[in-house]
């Protein structure tokens, strides 16, 4: 049956990107130097969704999730060791999810874990690095107050931010409490 008006499709179209063969040469701080990439241009970050990197072993029948960047074990291992390509490095601040198929071999899982630790650190040092990359002094000060080995929660961040009189820290603390209850 044809709708009478504005018959737009509800479901978003899925987009499956080709494998990315980016070969990073050096990463220095937040600036990527001399990066040589041969992969496709990254997706424009307008979808509200985080970037998904899907690690695979080039086995037949493997299908990457829609709108993810496929990445071989070798690429993932290299990126974890030497640093990701510039476009991916830039996106880690807005969240990069590293995923693999449920039936992936151990090599894929190991490579994905290593890349995840590089791109999406959850420990205090990693968050401090992210705060520095964001350029948020309030958050940088707050992360310097965090101690312990476990990954800080939003509530931990909110409490650390609340210890400052900086209005921006107060605002971010409120947003952290909101996210704690999302």
């Amino acid at each position, binding site marked *: 049956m044809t709708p009478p008006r504005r*018959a737009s499709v509800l479901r978003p179209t899925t987009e499956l990107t080709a494998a990315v063969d980016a070969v990073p040469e050096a990463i220095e701080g937040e600036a990527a130097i001399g990066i040589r990439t041969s992969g496709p241009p990254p997706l424009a970050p307008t979808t509200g969704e985080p970037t998904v990197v899907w690690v695979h072993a080039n086995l037949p029948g493997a299908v990457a999730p829609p709108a993810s960047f496929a990445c071989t074990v070798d690429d993932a291992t290299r990126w974890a060791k030497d640093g990701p390509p510039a476009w991916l490095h830039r996106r880690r601040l807005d969240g990069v999810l590293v995923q693999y198929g449920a039936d992936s071999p151990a090599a894929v899982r190991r490579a994905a874990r290593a890349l995840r630790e590089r791109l999406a650190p959850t420990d205090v040092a990693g968050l401090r690095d992210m705060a520095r990359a964001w350029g948020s002094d309030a958050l940088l000060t707050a992360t310097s107050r965090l101690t312990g080995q476990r990954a800080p929660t939003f509530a931990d961040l909110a409490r650390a931010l609340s210890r400052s009189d900086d209005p921006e820290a107060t605002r*971010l603390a409120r*947003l952290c409490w*909101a996210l704690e209850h999302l």
Partner: protein
Amino acid sequence: MPCLLAASDDRTHKSVSPPGERIAILALQRLGDVLTAARITDALSRRRSTATVEVVHWDATGQAAALLPGVAARHPLPFRGLRRRARAHAIAPLRVLSGHLDAIVGGRGFDRVINLSSTRFACWLAPTLLAPGGTICGPSIDDVGRYTASHPAIEYLNDWGVDTARNTFAHQDLLSLAAGVRMAGFAGLRDGGGRRSGPIVVHPFGSERAKDWRTPDDWRQLVGRLGALFGHPCVLVGSPADAEALAHIARGTNAKVATWPLAACIALLDDATGLVSVDTVAIHLAAMLGCPNVVLRQGPARGLAFVAGPAALCVDAEADVATVDEVITLAERHFSPAPLPLAADPAWAVRLRVREAFRDDHGYLALRTPAWCNTDPMWSWAIDDRSDVAWRAAWRASFSGEVPAPAILETLLGGTGRFDAARLDALLRSPNPLGSAVRRAGGNRSAA
């Protein structure tokens, strides 16, 4: 058919930075709940003191937000995106949320934030949208982490509104009251009225399985017989995810399946003879278009919380769920322009609670057993209806900061409805001013 979007856009073409209040409606809710904000956005946008009304909503409810009248800007927040980013690291969703809020607030902030959601997320978020000196209507959490209701209606909503037995108000009315919007005065989204000659629309699946009515085979039987009764095939509506299940129901009935966006469903419901639905977004859309609807309500959907509008006939499963025959009889009665006689059926009256929605003298949505149900005035449903009236009167006075009349307090203390004991017990333990008044009245009664 009204041109809703055009009407909305017309009001957006105001001069740059007009004087007056910049108002944010925080509608971080589900589709149907977002639709019920229409009365608030419409009323506020018509006030001389209003510069702009803007809606902050989840990206998944963009279709409902697009239908709200009088809205100058709609700001979607990425619910799924925030949750998925939180799986990467804590700073990712924080940075994205902060960026969205910066873009929404701009340099000025909002003079008034109306929060329509009681979630802690929304309560923490609401104050971040405020301009210095601005006010919040609805629930929020203050700078030292205390919950603030801001209005007695919101206190009631949180303490009583979630209990189907105790609550006697529609949530949308309580939220409108807290937003300072008159109960009456919203004509809905349909221009002019006129006869309805379209098909019967059927929405079988809600957002929760607990709200479902019977089996797909029963729906098929219902759809086939309703189509034959009213002379043209029914139209089955639902989300694209339900397309296969809807096609299964439609098989062999000549019914059509339409998994359309909400805006497209407006044209369908605007001319539809009626809607048969479980408790879901379709009833709210039908209510705004004045489309008569029979709502088959189970479990948490019963009670007064989710009454969509005066065009609804609510069929609540009490001892058992309504049968196909009963739904057809009720639909025929409710959708026919001329009243049809309805045979008395004692078995039916015991098993189901059938109530029609209406706006009471104060403009609040309410439910009552219709006169044509042939219910014995001493039957429990009728007693419960009278109990609801008394409790609504008491709370209404309390919302205005008044003490209810002694006769009303006496009625509360001597109520014999099914829910009276539980309501009174909760009220006697409540620190609410109405609780104090009832305790005093109870003490006087004992002394006498």
